[in-house]
């Protein structure tokens, strides 16, 4: 009798636990559904777009006027804008970010670390729209007052604010890579009579190079996918130029500007969103995968 009561309690508990386990599995599988959802949604509409516009025209065409009466679907200006912002912000962020990482792991006292690290974390947590605002109302006027011939919207300010935005990412990932270099490696170099700077540049950075490269690539991927800061600071006019003083439109800024303007559902203009989105997704995904591969190599190297 009593045993039977225990039995039913135990079985019902077993059923509950079986259910809980499978609910957790479902939650895990949701991430796969999300990925497939992204790929499906982008490909489904992009496919319709590429049925009308040949991919060669899209990827090599030099004019992007999708909303005109006689539309032109050459996405090169958007890609050039994206490239300009990514390259410019990398020039700002990679050296600064790496030097801060070196400072934090090799020079800083614990007390200063406790100031610099949270400062960077806060910098990383500031919404991108704020960076866009500052680029437009703060950075551009300052640069103009220095005599640079800048448009109100310009690639230079966009690159600078996106660069500031990705510094914390470069720092935190590079610092992890530098911290993974064994102490014995450093001591061996000191033992050979190297100065501190020589130990860092010739030994530590080389040993951590794949991790540092991974942080650089991830930061560039972030810059490529950044939307609000570039929309506000760099502008919304497709422009095939290499001049950093002019207005440019990135791929992300195009998507942001176009959805705001209520494009008719199902039109080729609507499908451009997905064609551009798919190209953007493919770019950032390959950068992210490359970065992960480098991190794995670093782990193997130190194992």
């Amino acid at each position, binding site marked *: 009798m009593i045993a039977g009561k225990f039995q039913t309690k135990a079985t019902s508990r077993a059923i509950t636990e079986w259910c809980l386990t499978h609910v957790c*599995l479902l939650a895990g599988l949701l991430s796969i559904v999300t990925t497939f959802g992204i790929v499906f949604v982008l490909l489904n509409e992009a496919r319709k777009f590429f049925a009308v516009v040949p991919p060669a025209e899209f990827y090599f065409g030099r004019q992007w006027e999708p909303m005109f009466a006689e539309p032109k679907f050459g996405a090169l200006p958007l890609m050039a804008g994206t490239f300009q912002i990514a390259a410019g912000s990398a020039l700002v962020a990679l050296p600064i970010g790496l030097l*801060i990482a070196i400072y934090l792991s090799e020079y800083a006292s614990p007390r200063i670390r406790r100031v610099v690290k949270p400062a960077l974390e806060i910098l990383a947590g500031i919404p991108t729209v704020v960076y866009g*605002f500052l680029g437009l109302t703060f950075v551009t006027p300052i640069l103009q007052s220095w005599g640079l011939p800048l448009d109100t919207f310009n690639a230079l300010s966009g690159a600078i604010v996106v660069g500031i935005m990705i510094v914390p990412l470069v720092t935190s990932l590079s610092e992890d890579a530098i911290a993974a270099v064994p102490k014995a490696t450093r001591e061996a170099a000191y033992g050979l009579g190297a100065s501190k700077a020589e130990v860092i540049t010739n030994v530590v950075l080389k040993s951590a190079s794949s991790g540092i490269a991974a942080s650089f690539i991830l930061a560039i991927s972030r810059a490529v996918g950044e939307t609000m800061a570039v929309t506000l600071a760099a502008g919304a006019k497709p422009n095939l130029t290499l001049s950093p003083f002019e207005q440019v439109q990135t791929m992300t800024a195009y998507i942001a500007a176009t959805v705001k303007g209520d494009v008719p559902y199902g039109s080729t203009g609507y499908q451009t969103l997905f064609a551009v*989105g798919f190209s953007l997704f493919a770019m950032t995904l390959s950068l992210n995968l490359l970065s992960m591969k480098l991190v794995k190599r670093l782990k193997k190297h130190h194992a």
Partner: protein
Amino acid sequence: MPDFASSRISTARQAKDRIFRGLCYGAAALGVLLLVIVLWGAVREGFSALTPKFFRGYPTASVSRAGIMPALLGSLWIVLLTLAISLPVGIAAAVYLEEIARKTRLNAFIQANIANLAGVPSIIYGILGLAVFVRFFGFGNSIVAAACTMSLLVLPTVILTTQEALRTVPMAYREGSLACGATPWQTLLRMTLPCSSGPILTGVILAASRAIGETAPLLVVGALASTREVPHGIRDPYTVLPIQIFNWSGMPQHAWHVKAAGAIIVLLTMLLALNAVAIVLRNKATRI
């Protein structure tokens, strides 16, 4: 006779050493300075906008009366709903990967996949939300569509930080609980999760600050440019603080930029408060 040649080399090396150190110190100082500049830039511009009327007002067409009340409430709705959706799902997924799953190919794939999702640009989530929640499920430009989109966006963050948190609990705790006769699920619910609640909360705060600050996906899933209505339910249209900032920043007149900066101060204050809580929690956790 002293060896002048080699001593000259060593001074050159010493100089290089000093220059390199100077560069590193300079970069670190610049990092802190940038934060100060960013915060100061917003506060200097927007402080005069912070009046009681600004908090109670609607985003009207006249600059002098424009306020952020609907945006503030919209942000609150979306953050709370996003957390309500993403926390149970994210924690469950983390529990699966960390506590239940065996090392199968499927689970390794899920793990790699989550790492990848964390790197997908936020505007792509917006496009996904537009196609799935706004159009396919027919949620329209509503709070629930925005919160679902935002939940997918923050899920990788929640999962990865919860996994880290679960890893901080020593194996011996679980073994002790199991040895006392607890089932694996009792161990999880009464031992492992409570022991890791501190760092899990840090992840929750990270997710919340992401949900408050993100702009691009909500632009795509149809946050309103301006609204005279305060949202009353999850099917209502909405606007949020970052969208409000974006719209006011895009205006050519300087007076609107003051309003935008005022809204930025409000947004940053909320984020700093959340971050401060996270830092305090983490310091507490490391002390244990």
